[in-house]
């Protein structure tokens, strides 16, 4: 019973994990991206369409990354190069994503593909309780574990990561050291968006191998909230995404068990949880435990007089 619940937790949490990681990369560079929901949809549709056309899941994942990378570049162009308002640009990106996927998705509605299958990791999958949930999963889930570690390593053990963190905190300081602020920011936004796209593709290639209009159902917004909950750390993002996944899994379980509580109320739980998380993490932020990048949301203009 618990094993099944844990398994469902990981599977429900993974798309949100990818999206949260992508958003963290954006925000570490100092750019707020509210286009996550739209980027996930773009990733979900491109991934599904590419796999449907080619039969290759790998190509599907790549297509999701590339399509979201390109869509994210629009956000980067507006917010980094043109120093536009990040909130407005991000919201526009979400609406763009919802619209364009509804339009181009019509052709593949109702089609099916062979989605990602489970591959047990030898030995590890035999572990009691957690073995099946974490190590009898598909390749995308294993990739998400790797990504969590890689992002941490990138930020804290590589020169590029240090430079990117500095840009998010104080772009003028980075500029004074000769670091090309705009180039870094652009790449961070575009690559981060690419990973968000993979999160979307998880839905259409693994969770339910088909395309359904607006299939993200607000998961992108939950990722935006989880970035704050995770204090911009990839490991805490893993924790947050699974917490959310766990609540989703539980409410499905309750429904299956046939409780008297209305299904609508149960389906609300993950979103209520998101609000609670935001309240708690905001209180924590105010107590000075903030890990928020110092220049988050502010455009950088070298000639601006300080």
């Amino acid at each position: 019973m618990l094993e099944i619940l844990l398994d469902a937790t990981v599977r429900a949490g993974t798309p949100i994990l990818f999206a949260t990681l992508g958003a963290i990369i954006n925000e570490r560079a100092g750019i707020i991206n509210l286009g996550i929901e739209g980027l996930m949809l773009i990733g979900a549709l491109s991934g599904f369409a590419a796999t449907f056309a080619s039969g290759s899941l790998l190509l599907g994942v790549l297509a999701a990354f590339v399509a979201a990378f390109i869509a994210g570049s629009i956000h980067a162009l507006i917010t980094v190069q043109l120093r536009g308002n990040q909130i407005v640009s991000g919201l526009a990106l979400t609406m763009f994503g919802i619209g364009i996927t509804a339009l181009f998705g019509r052709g593949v509605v109702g089609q099916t593909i062979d989605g990602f299958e489970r591959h047990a990791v030898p030995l590890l999958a035999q572990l009691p309780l957690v073995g099946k949930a974490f190590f009898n999963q598909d390749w995308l889930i294993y990739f998400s574990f790797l990504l969590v570690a890689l992002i941490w390593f990138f930020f804290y053990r590589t020169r590029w990561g240090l430079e990117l963190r500095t840009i998010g905190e104080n772009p003028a300081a980075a500029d004074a050291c000769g670091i090309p602020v705009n180039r870094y920011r652009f790449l961070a936004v575009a690559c981060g968006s690419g990973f968000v796209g993979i999160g979307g593709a998880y839905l259409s290639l693994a969770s339910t191998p088909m395309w359904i209009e607006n299939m993200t159902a607000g998961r992108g917004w939950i990722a935006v909230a989880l970035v704050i909950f995770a204090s911009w750390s990839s490991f805490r993002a893993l924790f947050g995404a699974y917490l959310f996944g766990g609540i989703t899994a539980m409410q499905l379980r309750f429904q299956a068990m046939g409780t008297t509580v209305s299904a609508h109320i149960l389906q609300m739980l993950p979103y209520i949880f998101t609000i609670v998380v935001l309240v708690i993490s905001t209180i924590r932020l105010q107590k000075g435990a903030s890990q928020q990048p110092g220049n988050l949301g502010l455009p950088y203009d070298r000639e601006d007089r300080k």
Partner: protein
Amino acid sequence: MPDLLQLTHIRKTFPGVIALDDVSFSIRAGEIHTLLGENGAGKSTLMNVLTGFYAPDSGGLQLDGQPVRFASPRDSLALGIGMVHQHFMLVPAHSVLENIMIALQGVPLLFSRRQQRARIEQTIEEFGLDLDLNAPVWKLSIGAQQWIELIKLLLRDCRLLILDEPTAVLTPQEAAKLFQVLLRLKQQGKCIIFISHKMREVMEISDRVTILKKGRSVTTLEKGEFDQKKLAGLMIGGDRIPEWQKSLPFSEEIVLEIENLSVRNDRGLADLDNFSLRLQKGEILGIAGNGQKALAEALTGLTRVESGRVLAAGEDITRSCARSSYIAGIAHIPEDRKAIGIVPDLSLDENLILKNFRAKCFRNGVFQSRSAIRDNAEEKIGQFAIKAGPPGSPVRLLSGGNIQKVIIARELSEQPAVLVALYPTRGLDIGSAEYVHKVIADGASNGMSTILISEDLDELYKICDRIAVIFRGRLIGYADPTSSSRAEIGLMMSGEVSA
């Protein structure tokens, strides 16, 4: 010595402001070259042009006789020009090590922290400095933060180092240490551009001095050609330094009484401990020692008082918030001009009525009266000689001296009984500083009492009637500037002697 760098006819404008009009001067190898000028003369703008932060509208730079153009700070840094900015280019949340590392060249993508640390520690030791590389920058004093900036340049092996008012934030001991390091760098053949308002330092360290005025280079003088008086004269040019006289003997009437006040800071330590003080009408009372900031915040209602009372004209104002303190007649010139003195993005007109915007004269029913607010601004601009930009432009574009005048104009507009001024002349040029002193002295003649909080003993001596010395949050005693020596006050400040 050949010229290392030449600037010819540099011009730089911002919307509505000519920051640099026509600046030309040159820097030789191995000299300390001081730039002198009033606030808003264009010193910092010029240095931002030199470091590639600002692209000049016209004019040229020549390095080693070759014309150069800087598209970004990266270009100027590559040619060995580095700067310690007045507002430090540091990340407070990162460690000292991380802050220094981003400035280093040749750090591999996957670096070894130990190797980089050793490299940095070597330079720190070489210059006899003391820095904890693991500490987060926000925990360090401003003086220590400045050393980080300097070490970044030393590790970059810059040929030309620019220091924008480095001593403004240093204690005298730290400043002396800085000068030692600068002289040593000079001996190594490096050039240093030094910006300071403190004449004594300029005289001590400069090989040459270039004077800027209103965005133009006035002249460059060699060592021996200048003295303090001449420099001050050139800097101010035709402008008159405002004259003022110390107030008449003040009356016996007590306007402000502090009884056994205790204030704790965020960390729970006592900033003020059972502190008592009496302020007489028309008096200028200086405060020296630590705990000054807590005193100012307690008086102006910005901090929570633990115990004790503050009486203004007999009325208890201990628990009042900032607006009611103002109504009770206490005006405040805060320490951090841009952070709490003004709203940087609002216009001059709006900043001038921040405290009394509810007054009937600025309203038409529920609406603001734009014309009355504009008239008020015009009046204040004239009265306080504020050099204002075009109407409606954000007040942050003004120079430090003018921003201070805006604050003073606003604070004095309701004829306060008491003025609490924190470091009111910090970072101001001679003309502006004298102006602030004149306002305080004139106010005293009209019966306004002032509590002047300053680290600058010279300032306290010059203008105060009495100096109260605080040590560890307690009042040690009063000193009379006409009879006590600086050494006596120094001993009181260190808690060794009480008056």
